[in-house]
């Protein structure tokens, strides 16, 4: 078998694995096949740049990130084999470049010439790593594996459904078909643009932008093998350049940091002048990247000030957005920003679609990190899937007991994402004389955080003047205090005030918003007389005014019970720009942590008595 055939098989296998893992990332697959937990974030765990940069921000190597050694160690021996043998994003670029390949030998050779722009990726790497040293993890913006996971999650896979049909997986998970992601179109567009840039130059992203490629390029200086040209056999025909994926000049002094070890040059050479050689001489190669010292210093300086630049907005501390609710198990905000890759695998696995990529809600550095949008979903009570797939521990892996404060975790109580509040001006019972109470119905904790009490509200045109009254009935003037909305005199429809268990009607002898005095339920009514369910203590004399009130349940919040799951906000029937009940991060458990940037957020609102 030719070595390039082996390479194509390897690329296909890893691309297929990537597609399989990301499509299988769903709660039902995780619960049906627990063994998948080991595999689902594997491509992110083997990413050496993820390991190196999170080690810089957190000074630890989180759980599965030890797997990055399976890429790091071979790179030290063989060079950047990862780029052209494993990387699924690289394979996508390779494939696009192949589909739109140039015609003619000279055009091919021109397309694969080394260009100075290749140095950009080293500056990007330096800037991002220095930023990481000072506490903000940004490599995920361009790291190829993180990028491709994010793009597939928020925009590529959701494209299924129309016009291509959505795919139903065993166990009920559906691929595509109605997954919603705010700003997903931006990432979808970026993904499309990066792929089309292969038409301008093959492997443009890999050669120019990829910070992982840059890291591996730097490490490849230690490799023991590389492509070597035999000048005695070489006739300088340049045919070797026509298929060169890395644009690493195999026809001259090999640029070892750019070589993807694709072996196309060896296959293409008509004179057998190229081979993969053990310890060839340093003189016939360009060992390191041609990054200039001043450029590196500039890049390092930008990384150095990036953190203070973005945090000057105050979005991580005192001006923390009231809309930012992090997933259950998320660590304190500054630690979160040290760990979150923006790979958005939590979004992918979330069964309710509540997790969304942030734009600038937490400042520039929080771009594409997960936040909850309760208009789209809610946090499912017994689900901790986001913590299972998080490769870096930005979302800690909780058990259901830990999340809900049950069993062994009863002492510390449930994990609170925030606290729900009512907007009384929008709430149907509080301001619109309409019974509702969906929020209480749906509140999933026991006892419910949302409870209810009966309150009375004076009806519009509820003041009526009495013409006759006994202890058990009140007759009201036909046209009492005015006319109704159509201009007709206020007459009653028979049984209008009979009421039911949801809402009942009452008469008060002293009408007013805070009516004092006795309130008696109306049992029934005819066109002008109310029959009362109980006797009036003071019979109102004719000519005086009484008030007709509606009585029903209004919602109240016991903040000490609320866990911020957002089910109430999701289900609230007041569907405008803001629901009548909504969750803010006050009381979130993760800010109780000692070093929290803003511990005020963890302070729970006092339980009202």
């Amino acid at each position: 078998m030719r070595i390039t055939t082996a390479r194509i098989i390897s690329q296909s296998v890893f691309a297929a694995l990537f597609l399989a893992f990301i499509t299988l990332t769903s709660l039902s697959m995780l619960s049906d096949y627990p063994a998948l937990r080991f595999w689902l974030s594997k491509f992110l765990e083997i990413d050496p740049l993820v390991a190196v940069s999170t080690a810089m921000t957190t000074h630890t190597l989180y759980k599965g990130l030890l797997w990055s050694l399976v890429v790091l160690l071979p790179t030290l021996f063989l060079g950047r084999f990862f780029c052209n043998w494993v990387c699924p994003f690289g394979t996508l670029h390779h494939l696009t470049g192949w589909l739109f390949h140039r015609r003619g030998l000279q055009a091919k050779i021109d397309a694969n010439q080394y260009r100075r722009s290749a140095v950009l990726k080293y500056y990007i790497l330096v800037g991002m790593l220095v930023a990481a040293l000072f506490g903000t993890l940004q490599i995920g913006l361009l790291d190829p594996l993180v990028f491709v996971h994010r793009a597939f999650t928020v925009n590529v896979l959701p494209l299924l459904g129309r016009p291509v049909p959505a795919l139903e997986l065993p166990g009920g998970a559906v691929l595509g078909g109605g997954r919603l992601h705010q700003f997903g179109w931006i990432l979808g567009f970026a993904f499309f643009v990066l792929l089309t840039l292969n038409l301008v130059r093959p492997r443009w992203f890999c050669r120019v932008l990829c910070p992982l490629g840059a890291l591996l390029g730097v490490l490849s200086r230690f490799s023991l093998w590389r492509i070597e040209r035999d000048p005695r056999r070489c006739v300088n025909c340049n045919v070797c350049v026509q298929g060169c994926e890395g644009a690493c000049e195999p026809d001259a002094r090999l640029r070892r940091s750019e070589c993807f070890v694709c072996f196309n040059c060896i296959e293409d050479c008509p004179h057998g002048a190229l081979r993969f050689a053990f310890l060839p001489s340093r003189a016939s190669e360009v060992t390191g990247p041609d990054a200039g010292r001043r450029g590196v210093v500039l890049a390092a300086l930008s990384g150095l000030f990036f953190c203070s630049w973005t945090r000057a907005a105050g979005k991580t501390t005192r001006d923390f957005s009231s809309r930012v609710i992090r997933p259950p198990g998320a660590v304190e905000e500054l630690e979160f920003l040290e760990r979150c890759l923006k790979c958005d695998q939590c979004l992918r696995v979330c069964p309710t679609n509540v997790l969304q990529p942030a734009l600038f809600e937490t400042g520039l550095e929080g771009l594409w990190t997960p936040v909850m949008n309760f208009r789209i979903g809610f946090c499912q009570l017994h689900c901790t899937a986001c913590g299972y797939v998080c490769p870096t521990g930005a979302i800690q892996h909780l058990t259901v007991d830990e999340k809900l404060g049950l069993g062994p975790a009863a002492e510390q109580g449930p994990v609170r994402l925030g606290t729900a509040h009512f907007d009384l001006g929008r709430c149907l019972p509080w301001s619109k004389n309409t019974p509702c109470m969906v929020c209480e119905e749906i509140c999933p904790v026991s006892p419910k955080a949302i409870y209810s009490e009966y309150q009375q509200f004076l009806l519009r045109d509820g003041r009526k003047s009495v013409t006759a009254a006994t202890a058990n009935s009140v007759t009201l003037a036909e046209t009492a205090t005015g006319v109704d909305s159509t201009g007709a005199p206020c007459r009653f429809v028979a049984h209008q005030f009979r009421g039911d268990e949801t809402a009942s009607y009452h008469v008060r002898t002293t009408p007013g918003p805070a009516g004092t005095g006795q309130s008696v339920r109306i049992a029934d009514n005819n066109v002008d007389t109310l029959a009362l369910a109980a006797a009036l203590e003071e019979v109102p004399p004719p000519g005086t005014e009484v008030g007709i009130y509606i009585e029903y349940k209004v919602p109240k919040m016991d903040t000490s019970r609320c866990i911020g799951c957002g089910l109430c906000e999701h289900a609230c029937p007041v569907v405008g720009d803001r629901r009548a009940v909504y969750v803010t991060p006050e009381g979130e458990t993760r800010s109780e942590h000692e070093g929290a940037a803003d511990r005020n957020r963890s302070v729970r609102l006092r339980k009202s008595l």
Partner: protein
Amino acid sequence: MTETHQQVPPAETGPGRQLSRREFLLRGGTTVAAATATAGLAVWLHDDIGTAGLAQPRPATIKNYFAAVDYPESAPRVSIVRDARDRVDGMVGAALAPLGGIERFVRKGDCVLIKPNVGFERDPRLGATTHPEVVRSVIRLCRRAGARRVLVTDNPIEQAAACFARTGIRAVADQEGARVVLPVERYFQPVAVRPTPPDPARNEALGTWPILWAPLEQADKVIGIAPIKDHNLCSASMLMKNWYGLLGGRRNQFHQAIHDVISDLGLLVSPTLVIADGLRVLIRNGPTGGSLNDVRPAHTLVAAVDQVACDAWCYENLLQRDPTRLRYLELAHRKFGLDAYSQSRRFGRHDWREYERTGLLVEQDLSNRLA
């Protein structure tokens, strides 16, 4: 410019070239055809009034799943079984026996749709959802009666797949060879519950509404199995309320007139059979529950062909509340009275004691029966 005036030969290209008749007809004809087609398409698509593109497809109507059952007037309408030891298989069989057994309801080759209440992602012990063992024995009975296919569906409040998994319904469906139909968007379709728009003054809530249609369309028979539980707003969620799980759209608006909608739901589906799961009754903190303290084991199953009477009996005997004060029972009674089919069968009674007097309500206690 030259002085001599030469004869210019006919050119191949340029202003003076000779145009053949053939080329003129071919190219000119193509242009005229394209222009005609464009104009024709525009005229064909033209909507003079401007509303032709807004016409809605005709809504579907749900068939009556009881119509095919040959049910004698004299047979009991409500059959109650208690067993302190909760031997569910025996209880289901015993409850169905006075109604004529499963064979009266399910024929060989039928497609049976079972509608449990899987509204929330809760452990079955918490009483917020239909107990899976009841579903299991009903699936088994249907299979034994020769059902070709058994479907199980619901449109839960919380995430569907998780609800079916945690309530144990999916596991029993898988084990017994029934198919769980998850509520995918394309399964919903507008259904005309009543031909006219709903009139709130007459306590009507549903006109045309998106319904989980695909499984209903396939089914020959529909069996509702609902837990008996407390409800914060309408006091109790029982058998009629169970059909709420077939509604799609923004159904939470119905809570503003919840008794109207529940009594409408009784008319939305005319089920083949309903079974009340009173094994573990959620007596407070409903409809979600979440604590074993909210649950009272009542060891009871009720099979019925009259869901209103069944609700009334359960409300009084399992939740121990007064059914004359439950508004939706009264409304349902009134609405069923207007419904010609139900009226002819005298179904839809909210005073279950009437059935007790006439022998249409039977009770059994299996607690002392040997296994």
